[in-house]
Structure formats: structure tokens, C-alpha cells
């Protein structure tokens, strides 16, 4: 679910679009991914854009989608944050 990469951390997430609000709702244990609800629909990259904006605001860091642009399951890099820091911030 969290993987160290360079000076950042890769988050393995599963995105639920068309949600009432943007929020991290917990861990999808079967997939081993962080479940993230996003308000935007998965149309023309809107959900991806909102996911990046949401996570970068949350962590106060640059965020980039590494894999899964067209999938609900995505790997997202949070630059400059270690695994332990992310784990603590998310109370994991």
C-alpha cells in the first residue's frame, strides 16, 4: 500500500469517483490499497486531476500519478515524504 521510492512514497490507491466529497475512507484489505473517494466523475481526466489536487493539499507536497491513469487502481507518488511520515499522517 505504501512503498518508498527515492525521497518520496508511492501510494497504491483505489479511487471511487462521483463521491459526495473527497476523502480517504480507509484500506481495501483485499486489494491492499488505500481507498480514496473523489467527487469528480472519471471523465476526461477530471477524477485524476482532482485526486492529484486533493492529495497534494492533504500532504502539502507534489503529487503525481505514476500508473493507472485509466484505471481505478492507481499508483501515486507523494514527493518528499517518507513512508513513516505518510503512515503517521494517515494514522495507519
Amino acid at each position, binding site marked *: 500500500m505504501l512503498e518508498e521510492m527515492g525521497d518520496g512514497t508511492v501510494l497504491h490507491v483505489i479511487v471511487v469517483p462521483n463521491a459526495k466529497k*473527497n476523502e480517504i475512507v480507509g484500506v481495501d484489505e483485499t486489494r491492499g490499497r488505500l481507498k480514496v473517494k473523489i467527487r469528480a466523475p472519471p471523465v476526461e481526466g477530471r477524477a485524476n486531476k482532482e485526486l492529484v489536487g486533493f492529495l497534494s493539499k*492533504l500532504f*502539502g507536497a507534489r503529487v503525481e500519478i505514476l500508473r493507472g491513469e485509466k484505471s481505478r487502481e492507481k499508483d501515486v507518488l507523494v514527493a518528499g515524504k517518507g513512508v513513516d511520515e505518510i503512515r503517521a499522517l494517515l494514522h495507519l
Partner: protein
Amino acid sequence: MFPASSFIHGMFEYGIHIKRLLPNRNDMVEIREASLRDVEAIVELNKKLADIHAEIDEIYKRGCETSKGFRNHVESLISSENASLLVAEMDGRVAGYMIGLIEKPRPFLKLEKIGRISDAYVDFEYRKKGVGRALLNRLLEWFRSNGVEYITLSVDVRNRAGYSFWRKMGFEDWMVRMIRRV
């Protein structure tokens, strides 16, 4: 959930017309959107805000779950599109914070949305340095960019420092909140 405005809810409310733009006189202070790493600092500042108010009136005394509730509240605000949680950083420390919310006004009003400052606090050692003013200026930009015309806030009239600050920032007496023992 813990109501953010509990500690500054007082007897009076003040409104401001949003057209007013105040200059930022202090460039030593960095104002930025809060992220999760700021939550603990904000919770600590909120405790101080609560303690000051508890000296004014016992109604403000904190419960044992207050910090936990406020922490959850702050975390949810960081990711909310209808909230702006700003922190002021000085000397690498969080010197103060301010929370702005965009809400639906009461149904009888023509306004579609109204802004509210639910929380604001600047630590004692960083006062008189333009930190509060800088926080407010940034928050005004956010309100303006979201099409908000008016913002309100509540301050306990016995909180002289708070009341005087908001008056200086252009807020005017607007509505009286009343309280009595049952």
C-alpha cells in the same frame, strides 16, 4: 463532531463587505494552506484559544474528547472544497491559523453563499507582527475567488484583544447573540 466555532461563539456577530482589501504589511510571515503535517500544531493553538476563553467564561471549558474531535474536524476541513484552513509560519513554527468556511445562508436571504471565519488564533509571542492581518488578507482572496460577497464571524465581546482586532480589520457590529442560563 466538535463545532469549530464553539470557542469564539460569543454574544455578537460582525459582518464585512468583501470589497475591502487590506494591505499585507509583513513579509516575514509565510501564509499557506494547511496540510496534514500542520494538524498537531493547529490543535495545540486551539487549546490555547480554548484556555483563554475558559478564563472568560466556564461555558468554554474543554471536554476530555475536545482535542480528538477538533483534530478530526481539522483533518476533514483540509480536504474540503468549502473550507480554507490557513497557517502562518514564522521562524519555522506555526504561529497562527485561521479557518474560513463557505456556507449556505438562511433561506430567506437572497445571497447564494456566505463566508464565515470559524476560528482564528495567533500565538502570544507572534502578536503585533501583522500575522493576523496577513492570514485575513489571504483568506479574503480565497473568499473573493469563490464569489463570496460577505463574511461573518463571532467573537465574545469580553475577548477584548479579539474584538479589537476584528474591528481594526473592518468588521462591524451586526447581530447580537444572546445567552442565558436555563
